[in-house]
């Protein structure tokens, strides 16, 4: 589609003007910092100063520590749990929006789902911190019923509430788009062949929307795996998740190379999970149905 189809290699100022900004900016402030992060895992800290080096000591040090593996497992388990929970909680709602809700209700729902994505997550977590606290609204209400008070903060429950706040809107939305793209005649056919609503959902709707459902769960996993705010402020920080390890090593430990080891491990884990999910969603690469 190039405007000049002649095979010439002259400098095209117009094309460069529009093509170059992203390349320059994202290379300088995205690729280079990430590359530096990888390089830094091999650097040393000598008398509190970061010194370029080529040593495996940071990797050794982190990978032989129990707290690292405890943190890794805990983070992974939480993320997997939240991916499943968010998918299960979101599905009936996404199904309702896709198949039963009126167009007006659907528009309002989409607005309500998009909005949280762009509005202060931090502030919403602060709000949960108050709601869930011992003197908070929920426990006051439980008190009216003669129950509680329940300990809902500084444990996995609190962290999970935070994680769901982070990823539920996106999960519902992706599932909703996946479900609304299903060929309606498939569902009609299932009904005509005598399938009840439940059987239709399990054996027609869910397989037809498989890709979207897997993607939704994957995004929930990715968001949860990398999040710092929920485990730190609602989860209480024990056992520390990988994100908390990074912040501790950076902010108080002042050992950036070790923090980078954790960060690079996280990136590799996320890439692996992403590819596993894509494989599960699309089947073997190249094998098109």
């Amino acid at each position, binding site marked *: 589609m190039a405007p000049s189809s002649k095979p010439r290699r002259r400098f095209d100022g117009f094309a460069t003007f529009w093509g170059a900004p992203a*390349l320059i900016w*994202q290379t300088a402030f995205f690729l280079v910092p*990430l590359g530096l992060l990888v390089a830094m895992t091999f650097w040393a800290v000598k008398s509190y100063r970061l010194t370029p080096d080529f040593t495996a000591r940071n990797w050794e040090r982190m990978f032989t520590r129990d707290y690292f593996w405890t943190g890794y497992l805990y983070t992974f388990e939480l993320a997997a749990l939240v991916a499943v929970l968010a998918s299960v909680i979101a599905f009936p709602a996404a199904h309702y929006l896709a198949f039963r809700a009126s167009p007006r209700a659907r528009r309002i729902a989409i607005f309500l789902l998009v909005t949280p994505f762009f509005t*202060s997550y931090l502030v919403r977590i602060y709000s949960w911190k108050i*709601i869930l606290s011992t003197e908070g609204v929920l426990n006051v209400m439980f008190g009216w019923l003669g129950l509680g008070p329940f300990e809902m903060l500084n444990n996995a429950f609190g962290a999970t509430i935070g994680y769901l706040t982070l990823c539920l809107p996106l999960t519902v939305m992706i599932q909703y788009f996946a479900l609304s793209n299903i060929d309606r005649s498939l569902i009609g056919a299932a009904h005509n062949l005598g399938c009840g609503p439940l059987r239709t959902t399990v054996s027609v709707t869910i397989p037809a929307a498989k890709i979207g459902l897997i993607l939704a769960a994957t995004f929930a996993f990715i968001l949860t795996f990398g999040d710092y705010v929920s485990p730190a402020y609602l989860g209480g920080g024990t056992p520390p998740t990988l994100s908390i390890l990074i912040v501790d090593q950076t902010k108080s430990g002042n050992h950036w190379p070790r923090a980078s080891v954790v960060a690079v491990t996280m990136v590799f884990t996320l890439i692996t999970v992403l590819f596993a999910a894509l494989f599960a969603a699309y089947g073997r690469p190249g094998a098109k149905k």
Partner: protein
Amino acid sequence: MTAARWQAAWTVLVFLFILTPIASLVVFSFNADRFPSLPWGGFSLKWYVAIFQDDSVRAGFWRSLRVSAIVSVLATFIGFATAYTDYRYNFRGKLPYLAIAALPPTVPVLILGLGMLSFFSMVNLVGTLSAVIAGHVVICAPFAMALIRMRLADMSPDIEPAAWNLGASRWATMWSITIPWCMPAILAGLAITAAVSFDEFMVAWFVSGLEETLPVRILALLQGQVSPRINAIGSLVFFISITLVAIAQVITPRQAR
């Protein structure tokens, strides 16, 4: 029909869960009591008065406003340029080009923050708003690109060549045809990127040093005691970002035709 009823009730519950923290935040920012909980302690504006008198909050607010204004212009320009390049040109390496332009939001902000901290500390920019701005543009530009690219998808690829054949230069065509066509998406991109930047705290926390933006101030307050002042700041931040998002949604061109 009971199954459908249950499903409707479940859907309402899911949305209640999503909206509860915001509603509670705003409601208790007007509560007179020191601890934001029930029973209701009476209506009061004193927490808002308190934050307007707090110098560190005011300073953070102005920094955030400045950062998000600059970020939205830069990110939307880069987003437009990239979307147009994708729309108009095919070239070798286009896939990796688009990947580095679109990928930043999928990397956990914590990891971006750490990478940028180490990078900016090498070029002596840590503790400056320029570092915050550079980092935010990385995260925000892909959102603007996506919005503008969707708008360009609705513009026939023959329109620009028609203008060129009639003798308009490529710059003139860009200025008088392509940009006006994209204007709703450009405005939406400005609003969305401003909202994302205004709320972003992780990259800002890592690289801003003493130049705290408002969300970084909130993060610091979170580590201390619960105070309705945070409700008031939070409500303010929420109100600003929801206004920007609402503007973006209203002017975003509908795809349905």
